[in-house]
């Protein structure tokens, strides 16, 4: 591994940790913790796809299309590290089929301090927290309490042009970020109601997911 790649991965790991802590902190603030592993990955994925709406730099613009919902294995390792160092707390664990475990995360005291420090010193962290706050509020208020399997109906992940086992690419080098396109389509068609391009972009996309999941 080259020095540049290793450094990039470290940067990325740090950013992921920041996003995870901010996400759990926002969920806690609204009384919505603990957040299950699947819920956390869905929020992180949606935040990355919709980051442009809030002028936030996404951490990653790609995800492997495998399973019912977007999942980032390397991010899960960072989440585990945060949990075992007390930044997050595992409030309970569910045991599923085939020995699968799903942890439900809350915010540890250290996490609260880290979050406070990030928000005090970084405009980017404030914008990211605002994006995550809208997403947490919109997703939990709708489909995410009951279901996390957004894969089939998500505009990017469910795109028939991307086969199972292939990479869903919504990075800045790829103009095909269908989630943002759906959000902008909805904003445009509801222009008469004077939507807010940022928060309503997020809310309307989540509203779409809610309705689409009810149909499947």
């Amino acid at each position, binding site marked *: 591994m080259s020095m540049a790649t290793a450094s990039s991965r470290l940067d990325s790991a740090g950013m992921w940790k920041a996003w995870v802590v901010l996400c759990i902190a*926002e969920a*806690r*603030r*609204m*009384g*919505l*913790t603990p957040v299950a592993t699947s819920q956390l990955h869905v929020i992180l994925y949606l935040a990355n796809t919709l980051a442009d709406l809030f002028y936030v730099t996404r951490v990653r613009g790609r995800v492997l299309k495998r399973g019912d919902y977007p999942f980032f294995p390397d991010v899960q390792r960072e989440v585990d590290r945060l949990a075992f160092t007390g930044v997050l707390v595992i409030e309970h664990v569910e045991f599923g089929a085939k020995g699968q475990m799903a942890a439900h995360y809350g915010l540890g005291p250290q996490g609260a301090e880290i979050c406070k420090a990030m928000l005090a010193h970084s405009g980017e962290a404030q914008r990211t927290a*605002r994006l995550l*706050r*809208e997403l*947490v*509020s*919109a997703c*939990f*208020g709708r489909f995410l*309490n009951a279901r996390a399997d957004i894969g*089939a*109906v*998500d*505009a*990017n*992940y*469910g*795109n*028939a*042009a991307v086969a199972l086992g292939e990479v869903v690419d919504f990075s800045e080098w790829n103009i*095909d970020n*269908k*989630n943002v*396109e*759906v959000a902008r*389509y*909805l904003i445009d*068609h*509801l222009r*008469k*109601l*004077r*939507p*807010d391009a940022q*928060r*309503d972009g997020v*809310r*309307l996309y989540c*509203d*779409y997911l809610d*309705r*689409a999941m009810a*149909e*499947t």
Partner: protein
Amino acid sequence: MNANDTETMGLGGALKAAVEAVVDNGAAGISVADAGTRTAFLDAWARTLTEHARYLRSKGESLSAPVVLVHAENCADVGEGLGWTRRPMLGGAPTDPFSGTLAIGTGEIGAYAAPEHLQDTNVITDAIRAANLGHSLTVALLSTSVLVIWPEGVDSDASPEIRRELDDAPVVLDLTALDQALKQFYERSARQSRTWWKDRAKRITVERPEGVVQNDLLHFLLGKYSEVARVKAETVIGHGRADITLTPMNTNFTSAVLELKVTRDFLTPKPGTVTPTACSLNENIDWAKSGVSQTAAYRDDESLEAAYLCVYDFCAGNREEIGKAIEDAAAPYSVIARRYWITTSHHEHRKDRYPDLSSGVPRVKG
């Protein structure tokens, strides 16, 4: 569902029917403020509890005990401190059982609830005070026909409660109704306001009085109309921001923009200084009239139907000059101009309303 449907729309794996359903019912998905703010909390819970009341009425049931939601910036910190029960799904559906619930929340759903079922308003008020929440925004469903909002909390004398009478008659939003609502706000919250003055005796307002008036009026209008309209503050329009906009969900109703101006005898002294700067009548008139072009431009840029200029006049003497000047300036642009005079005391209020009667000034003892 045919996958080609969405491919032709260029929307990837999105389901066309669901996208169209969001467009058709989009009004409900449009926000009025950022998640977690007081405004978003008030808008969401006023609607949820109104829908809950309607649901009970449709089943011929009554509310067996009040439902009270109190806002906190971080409901987890407060709720855990009180030892209350986490209810992440509270508010998720208006058909849920709510009666007897006292809860503290931050967002549109999810809250921490007092562990016991609370039977009546006295018990709930005591519990709110015991939890030190008497000065926090509170939304309460008292029966299937009454929703009450205390913008500054149940213990605030300064800000009067907002009552929403709930029945199955449709809420109408047109110019007559809006004019009446503005008058109602003036009479109940503004004319004898205790919170808009910094020093009533010297006729000095709080700092940034327009922001304070805007906030109070926004919450009043949300309390009245959140069910039928998106009531928003600081909507970006062109190069400016409209003070308040009302966008009805029913297109038969009237959309409107409200521009708010404050006129006053003195500018509020900056912190650390004591000398107030006097504002002349002409300066106040110019300032008030500047709202005409603002509100007309907002209306025209956004194709809204009505434009209001509401001047909250803190100057002594209830003089008509400002009102006359804004009406003359507004008429050519079809702007509805209103002046609302703010009194400093009950004595001033009574003297203005009942000039031929005794002033009612209490006699000084001794």
